[in-house]
Structures are given as structure tokens and as C-alpha cells.
């Protein structure tokens, strides 16, 4: 029994594996872009704060 057949109980039947795999991977990649942007936002502000604090000392 193939994986596509095993997962055919999900919505979209025999194509469930392909549809959910596509949407799942897309969600992960787009989420990755948002996470990266959020990490950069925090990292840059911390770096700049430290730089200015050092300059003020």
C-alpha cells in the first residue's frame, strides 16, 4: 500500500498526500521568512543598542 493510499482518508482522497504536502511545505517556507524577519529585527536592535552603549561609555 503506497503512502498516497494510506493517507487517502484525509480530505481530497487519493490526492490528499500531494495537496497537503504542497500546502504544508509552502506554509513552513513562508513561516520561515517571517521568523527570519523577526529574528533580524531583534538582532539588529540589540547590536545597535550595544554599539551605542559602548560609544557612550
Amino acid at each position, binding site marked *: 500500500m503506497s503512502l*498516497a493510499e494510506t493517507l487517502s482518508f484525509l480530505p*481530497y*482522497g*487519493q*490526492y490528499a498526500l*500531494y*495537496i497537503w*504536502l*504542497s*500546502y504544508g*511545505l*509552502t506554509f513552513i*517556507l*513562508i513561516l*520561515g*521568512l*517571517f521568523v*527570519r*524577519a523577526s529574528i*533580524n*529585527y531583534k538582532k*539588529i*536592535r540589540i547590536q*545597535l*543598542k550595544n*554599539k*551605542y552603549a559602548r560609544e557612550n561609555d
Partner: protein
Amino acid sequence: MWKWIQKLASPKVFYETTNKLIPWFFWPFIVLIIIGLYWGLVLAPADYQQGESFRIIYIHVPSAWMSMLVYFIMAVAGGIGLIWQIKMAEVVAKVSAPIGATFTLIALITGAVWGKPMWGTWWVWDARLTSELILLFLYLAYISLNNAFDNPKTAAKASSILAIVGLVNLPIIHYSVKWWSTLHQGSMFNDISNPSMHPDMLWPLFIMVFAFQFLYGVLALVSARDEVLVREQNSRWVRSIVMEEQS
């Protein structure tokens, strides 16, 4: 118009404008993606030939479309930075690259996953697929070249030239299904007044394309805002913004 562009070329104005624009892109993205996904996954009827598998179109086509649009924006912005020495154009080009590369990757992955049940294979060295893969390599080359130099000016110059040269790949991707005999299906919009899709299937596709455009807008604005802070870190206005956020 020209005055407005000149004003936007100032890093401080650019930073303030991006900050203001972010919610104007984020909320339309959220609304459109919810409507598009619901319409595409639930309301749209199954295709008479491809069955339910056609629903992959609602992420495959918008991401493929965006992969080319973002590359075009990146190359044009790079060209503007190169010719008119506008630093903010360099910023737009730089921040667009990882976003465009991700759209290209999504288009390639969803295309492969769609190809398996329809063509019986994940991948073929077909003109459309190969030219899209070359687009991904162009993005990766641009990102690598941009990170290879310490001086942002030199990095922008070298990578912009690469982006402009790579523009030649866009018409190849678009017309590949016409110029060569390919496994990939042809364009659905040869005649815009008479598309080959039923409106019930077409409307959610349009909505998803707009949602992806707003998604690019949000991500580019957020990244551009941070990139400006890094580039202008020795300016007084950046110092005051960062210190204000701290207090």
C-alpha cells in the same frame, strides 16, 4: 512624482514610510489569504481531468508568478541603484532576493509534488522546469555575491550587474511552453477575455496572486526597514530611534 521619489531616496523618509506601510500590506494579505484558501480548497469544484489535485494551482501559480515579478523588481531596483546611485534602491534589491528565492523554491516544490500524480514523475528536464531552476540559481548567486563583499556599495554593484544579466531568463521562463515542446501545461491567459478556466476556479487564483503580492510587500518592507537601520547606523536619527525604543 519625481519629487516624491527623491524624498523617498532619503533613508530617514524611507524608514518612516516603510514603517507606516507595513500594516497596509499585512492586513490585506491576511484577509486575501483566508478568502483565497477557503475558496480554493473548499468552494472551488474539482477539475474534470485532474480531479482534486488541481488545487495545488492556488499556491503553485502565485508563487511561480511572484518568483518572476520579484526578480524583475530586484533587477530594476539594482539598475536604479547602479545608474542613479540611489541607496534605497540597493536596499530594495537586496531584501527582495531571499523572498524571491523562497517563492521560486515553493514553485519548484509544489510543481514537483503536482507532477508526481499527473505526470508520474517528480521531475523532468523540461524547458519550463529547468528555466525556473536556473532562476533559483540566479537568486542564490545574487545572495552569495551580495554577501561576498564587506563594502555594501561594491556588493550592490556586483550583484546588480548579475541581476540585470539574469533578466534574460524571465522571457525564457514565460515563453518556454510556447517555444519548446514541454510536459508543462501552456499558459491559461493567452486571451485574457477568454481564459481557459471556469470563473469559480479562476477567482480564487486571482485572490491568491494578490495575497502573495501583499505577502511580498510585507516581507520586503520589514526587511528593508531593518537594512536601512544597519546601513545608517552612524546617523543621529538611527541612534535616536534605537535609544527611544530601548526606553
